[in-house]
């Protein structure tokens, strides 16, 4: 690709200008319903991944892991699950779970366990040792150190990582719509295939609104948890 590859940029502009307008919002009921489906997939799978990864990440944090081999093993597991793209995982689960949202949910959960595991274990490794020393000094167990010395320090960062990964999961579940996961991604893909570009415009706008809304909600919640 060279700068001259973009000489025909006008083609894209003309394509959008000529075919994507006026916006066709006639399917708005179906689109909103599909959007809810997308949100459900993204929210459920990221929450499930977080629930698994929060305890898991302690074993992958060098300053907390009870033994070096546990640290290595947990980290390797996170690296492994993170390295497989959601799309591949979803495709692999289709023969087991059939078409529909479940393969996408599994793909998102498995991949995000690896992502959260890595991010949160690094958050744990960066926590201030002071409160952990204090818990040890009063005779607390390793679990006390985690709950009282580390978790309170992690909370705000967990939230901000969560909301970012939710945003990514929304985008991913759109792509997973192509392999039959449903939701607004599938709808957009179908309309695109049928050259119904005016409908695609509406769906793109809806997705923008949804991502912005999630970002706004995240900011609101993070502001309250300081």
């Amino acid at each position, binding site marked *: 690709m060279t700068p001259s590859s973009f000489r025909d940029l006008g083609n894209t502009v003309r394509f959008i200008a000529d075919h994507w307008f006026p916006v066709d919002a006639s399917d708005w009921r179906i689109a909103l319903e599909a959007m809810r489906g997308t949100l459900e997939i993204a929210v459920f799978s990221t929450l499930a991944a977080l629930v698994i990864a929060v305890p898991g990440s302690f074993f992958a944090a060098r300053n907390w892991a009870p033994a070096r081999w546990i640290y290595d093993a947990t980290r390797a597991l996170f690296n492994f699950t993170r390295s497989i793209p959601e799309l591949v995982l979803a495709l692999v689960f289709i023969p087991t779970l059939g078409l529909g949202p479940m393969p996408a949910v599994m793909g998102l959960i498995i991949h995000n366990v690896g992502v959260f595991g890595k991010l949160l274990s690094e958050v744990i490794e960066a926590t201030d040792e*002071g*409160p952990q020393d*204090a818990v040890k000094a009063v005779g*607390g167990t390793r679990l006390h150190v985690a709950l009282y010395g580390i978790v*309170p320090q992690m*909370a705000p960062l967990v939230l901000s990582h969560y909301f970012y990964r939710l945003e990514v999961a929304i985008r991913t579940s759109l792509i997973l719509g192509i392999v039959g996961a449903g939701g607004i991604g599938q709808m957009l893909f179908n309309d695109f295939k049928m050259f119904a570009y005016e409908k695609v415009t509406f769906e793109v706008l809806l997705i923008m609104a949804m991502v912005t809304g999630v970002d706004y909600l995240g900011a609101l919640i993070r502001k309250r948890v300081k």
Partner: protein
Amino acid sequence: MAVLGRSGAGKSTLVRCINRLVEPDAGEIVWNGRAITGMNARELRGIRGEIGMVFQHFNLLPRLTVLTNVAAGRFADMPRWRSLTGAFSNEDKARAMAALREVGLEAYAGRRVDDLSGGQKQRVAIARVVMQQPALLLGDEPISSLDAVTAARIMTFIAGLYRERGVTVVLNLHDVAMARAYATRIIGLTDGRITFDGPPDELGEAELRAIYPPDEEDGGETITVEGKKGRNEEDV
């Protein structure tokens, strides 16, 4: 007992070795006839329950309430499920409130520790020690990040624990005047070795110079001389 010495002399390491926050490389630490070195994890937690500790940066549990921070002093004695869930018994809550009353912070029980001033934070840490009722109190520079008035107040309180409740107190201090004013025994550490051990009135100019030797490797002579002067002025 106060431990004096230059930065890097090993004061912190010494105090932290006693409850094994730092593992000693060699040697033995014996408290009331029991070797703390060589204890397994469970025994160590038990003995740590009997040893209180205050820190330079207070080391309160962030984002939690003052009351929870004080109640943490008895983690080693509570049933495990209570300490892990934070569902403290009424008796423990009452004790924590009593400890807070002693340091004059009972009105702050429900506040988050993050909102307190440095002096208030160290008083919460002291209340945690009162809650714990230890036989030994360790302090790693407990007054180094406080202003002079607050520092004196904290030292008076700690001295009270020693005098009225017979708590053995071992503190690292970098303030020689404070050590003289409050300690009954002073230990001087230089490069990890004891260079002074005696009551405060035996700590004279020569002894101080032994505890706080000037830098030898530092290049220019002028710097060394000035450094020495500066230290002496500060110390005496």
